[in-house]
């Protein structure tokens, strides 16, 4: 059952993200559930899992939403790797630490995507700073809440 937990979480993240994006596209800027799954597994399983899962999730998200295949995959795999490495080196178990990790990882993902698009000669979308910050704050808050719930479930 625990082996199925990861794929189920990922599937659920995609299902919720996609169905909400069809119904309320404006609200989707506030969270990125598949990215939260990548961060969660990077924090608990280390950089290699974060890297692999980030690449796979990023490719799927690129296929659905991105204009250039690989941009999201690269940013998510790098962020998955860095998150996994950071958690191995520092104690990041409290809610505030989690909030910082998820917020930083979300911000890094977005900035890395914009940077990669610019390097590849594509015009990056003019993402308003307010939407960027709202996305970082929303994802950090939601991630902290969901990670605490999952942590409690693991403890039980």
């Amino acid at each position: 059952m625990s082996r199925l937990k990861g794929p189920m979480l990922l599937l659920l993240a995609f299902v919720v993200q996609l169905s909400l994006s069809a119904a309320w596209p404006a609200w989707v800027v506030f969270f990125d559930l598949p990215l939260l799954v990548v961060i969660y597994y990077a924090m608990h399983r280390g950089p290699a899992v974060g890297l692999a899962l980030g690449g796979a999730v990023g490719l799927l998200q690129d296929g659905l939403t991105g204009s250039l295949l690989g941009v999201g995959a690269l940013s998510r795999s790098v962020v998955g790797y860095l998150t996994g490495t950071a958690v191995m080196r520092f104690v990041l178990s409290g809610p505030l630490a989690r909030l910082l990790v998820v917020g930083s990882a979300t911000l890094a993902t977005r900035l890395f995507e914009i940077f990669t698009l610019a390097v590849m000669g594509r015009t990056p979308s003019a993402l308003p700073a307010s939407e960027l910050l709202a996305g970082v704050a929303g994802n950090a808050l939601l991630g902290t809440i969901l990670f605490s719930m999952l942590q409690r479930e693991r403890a039980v």
Partner: protein
Amino acid sequence: MKQQSHEGRPGILLTVVAVALLALMAGQIRFGPWVRTEGAILRLLSPVLTGIDTAIRWSAEGIGYVTGGASPARVRELEREVARLEVERQRLEEQGLENGRLRALLGLRQSLPIPSVGASVLSNSVRGLGKTCIIDRGSSSGLEPGMSVVNTQGVVGRLLSVAPGISKVQLLTDASSGVAVLDQRSRVQGVLTGRGDRVLELRYVSTLDDVRPMDLLLTSGLDGIYPRGLPVGVVAEAGQGGADLQRSITVVPRVEFDRLEELLVLLRSDLPLDREEAAP
């Protein structure tokens, strides 16, 4: 020492993954979009997306059955029909104006309806970095990459990649999208491009051309993608231009991209050149 080599493995893996992904992106820039790869990803996610859509439809049908309201499937069908008729009305209206001007020169033109397929939006990433949406029709309904997508308000975008049951639409607001347009009032032509935010930019309009705020822009059909005469947007600001002798013009799209629901995919662009060739 053993610990160090173990820690180094993800670093090597990261390098390999990064190089592979950079090569993938460089390949797309060099040889164009990898439509087949994107189609394969869409095919992989197709069961998830269609499953969500089916679950939502069943729930709505159930609620409708219990409350005695109209069947959501019937409502959806009627909405698509309204969209199809509205698009046809807009196109014929512009064609009527055009015919009035050109009848003396070209003679009567045939008005051919454009075959279309109605589709519903499954997911919409209008606020993401790439402005796209996914619709519930694909190659099994005769759709192909490049076909134009519209709704009752105007032009929505074009198909980027297609799988059997679903397709990805590049929205007009995407930074890499473009459409050939003309000003309905002054007939000035230009290219309307996305900026990645909520407004569009009209390019290649000289400082001598007459474009004013509130002018309606229509597709000109010259790009070979969108049929002629569909509304695209309204001029919001028209600057006088700088050293490059081109005016800086911003346009607000007619379509509300935050509220996309029922769309029409036009199965061919019905270019005016074809009709001119057919005319006596």
